């Protein structure tokens, strides 16, 4: 059983839902990334996604793009990111997964990337530009090393296809709330709850919703239908303040923010 499987089986038994923050590695530097991850998990987050900065992220909105640009401006290297994550992951209760472009995984080498993820104590990867048709090779490699390869379903995915994607995904299934790029939204699509409800009837895999989630109201609305909620831009935007505010303050802000979301999650149940 993988770390992520374990997490969701525990949560399900306790009838709880996961809060899963996203942070960009190396924004503004790797030492801060390690601190933020510890803060997030210390406040009770259940799983963290770490974005590997990429020069051409087409699924990302301005906030995450800018964080990638800041990190890459310091010539951040994949080897250093993996080393930092390897330093924090083993001491952490919450699993860490990397969100990484296939351009990077391919250049690094599929086997090598999966091996390193496993050896560093990371739990899996999300490759947002690798659709199911192209993922067979990486999926086989990940299966061998017990690393989860989390696949995405979106509002534009036809239903038969969504079922096929669910069959190949491991760890959890990432449901993208909106047709569009990452970024905070005030309103989420009205059909979202129904769509996830339908997907729920098709798979036993945990379903986690991401893209656009930023407010306690979103959490209250979605926690009942999902196994977990992913919050990205709202956190990355707060971390961006580390460029000109004291780091302690930024850490506290980020921590307070997720605490607010966690409270909204438990109040609902």
């Amino acid at each position, binding site marked *: 059983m993988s770390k992520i499987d374990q997490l969701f089986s525990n949560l399900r038994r306790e009838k709880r839902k996961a809060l899963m923050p996203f942070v960009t590695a190396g924004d503004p530097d790797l030492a801060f990334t390690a601190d933020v991850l510890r803060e997030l998990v210390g406040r009770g987050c259940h799983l963290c996604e770490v974005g590997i900065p*990429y*020069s*051409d*992220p*087409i*699924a*990302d*909105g301005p906030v995450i*793009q800018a964080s990638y*640009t800041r990190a*890459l401006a310091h010539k951040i*290297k*994949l080897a250093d990111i993996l080393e930092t994550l390897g330093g924090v992951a083993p001491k952490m209760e919450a699993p860490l997964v990397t969100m990484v*472009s*296939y*351009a*990077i*995984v*391919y*250049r*690094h080498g599929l086997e090598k990337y999966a091996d390193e993820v496993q050896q560093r104590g990371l739990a899996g990867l999300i490759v*947002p*530009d*690798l*659709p*199911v*048709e*192209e993922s067979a*090779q990486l999926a086989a490699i990940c299966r061998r090393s017990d690393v989860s390869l989390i*696949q*995405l*379903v*979106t*509002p*534009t*995915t*036809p239903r038969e*296809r969504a079922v096929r*994607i669910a069959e190949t995904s491991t760890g959890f299934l990432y449901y*993208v709330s*909106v*047709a*569009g*790029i990452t970024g905070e939204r005030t309103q989420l699509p009205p059909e979202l709850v129904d769509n996830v409800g339908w997907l729920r009837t098709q798979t036993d895999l945990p379903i986690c919703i991401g893209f656009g989630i930023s407010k306690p109201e979103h959490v209250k609305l979605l926690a009942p239908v999902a196994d977990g909620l992913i919050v990205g831009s709202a956190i990355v935007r707060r971390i961006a303040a580390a460029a000109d505010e004291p780091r302690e303050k930024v850490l506290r802000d980020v921590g307070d923010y997720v605490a607010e979301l966690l409270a909204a999650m438990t109040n609902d149940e």
Partner: protein
Amino acid sequence: MIAFAAISVQLPLFLYSLSVFSVSSVSSVVNLPGLDSHAIAVENQRKELYHLMTSANAMTQVPDAAGRFGAFGGRYVPETLVRALDELGSEYDKACQDAAFQSELASLLKHYVGRPSPLYHAKRLSNECGGAQIWLKREDLNHTGSHKINNTLGQGLLTLRMGKQRVIAETGAGQHGVATATACAHFGLECVVYMGEEDIRRQAPNVFSMKLLGAEVRPVSSGSRTLRDAINEAMRDWMASVETTHYILGSVVGPHPFPRIVRDFQSVIGRETIQQSREQLGRLPDTIVACVGGGSNAAGMFYPFIEHANVALVGVEAGGRSAKPGDHAAPLSHGRPGVLHGSYSYVMQDDDGQTCDVHSMSAGLDYPGVGPEHSYWKDTGRVTYTNCLDKEALAAFDALAKSEGILAALESSHAVAKAMDLARSKPNEHAIVVCLSGRGDKDAAEIARLRSQHAE
């Protein structure tokens, strides 16, 4: 993937020599009584297109159903875009079988674009080089001044078939932007064009044209503020607008099925060249030269020649200032296979998979990637790829202007430069055809600026 590439080297070489259908049989002229010459020309054009899109000959076996040209191509995009790409592919397949679609496109190419574009013997330029004959395939004379219109009209028709009302596009040199804005004005579609700020500066005349044609030009300030970033922004727009919007990609790059569709729409260049060469030269040319940015004019020119194994094909990338990293935009010359903008192809990337900054004075060639079919042609050895420095292209621009009275686009000037080099080393019987992909009006101010920089 590497093992796959090795296998693919053998197969196509065998297929080239096999050539199931020769293009001569395809373009046999109909002479129907009662039709005027226009109608006959349109009918011939339609038949050629129909053949191209439906024939089971060796060439059309690439790409395969997954969009692979050997190991190259594929579809590395967010799940959000997959359905739209599938729909585009199946709508295109249907259009290929639809005679009405073929006729409409053929008629537009003739009466609106002004095709066929001439094949012109540049005698004074040839004499200056002393050696082979240089012929120019005059895509610069098309409506809107480049080959880009061949693709935008085809994709414009597909947009209508898919019932979409809004079009987005990226542009580097502005030629694809102008051609898209033109097609949208013609078809009554809303048009938004993404363009890097650096390109807006250096290709200003085309920015005005796009606006006059009713398009909205959205400046892109991220990254290198060039073509690559404009593609990123267009893709991001499409992620959110994909249900109502078609993305008219301007080159043979991007996820499947774009490389195939754009190549097919551009193949009119090569098909006409074959026919015109037979008429004007009495045979096929010995060598074809085309510039390669994303690779659409080159792919359209080369593709019908692929099966004619004794015609040498030469693609010319932007050599920029030098062969040093960051000084050029020549992934086939200096890059390695990797993933960018949805497909697997040669690319300028660092060891971490981050896209490298590249340089060309020519906005249309200033791109770190290249279409996957070119990677396939490179690895199979069917096409030779080389590159040309900024200053060599500028010299060729001058030579063509002064000897022939033709202002070529800076992009096309790269091909002219290599053709001139080649001509010097070949005998007079040797015929070289250069794809003159566009006209140079857009570049006049930038060339003046580059000159004054050099003078300083």
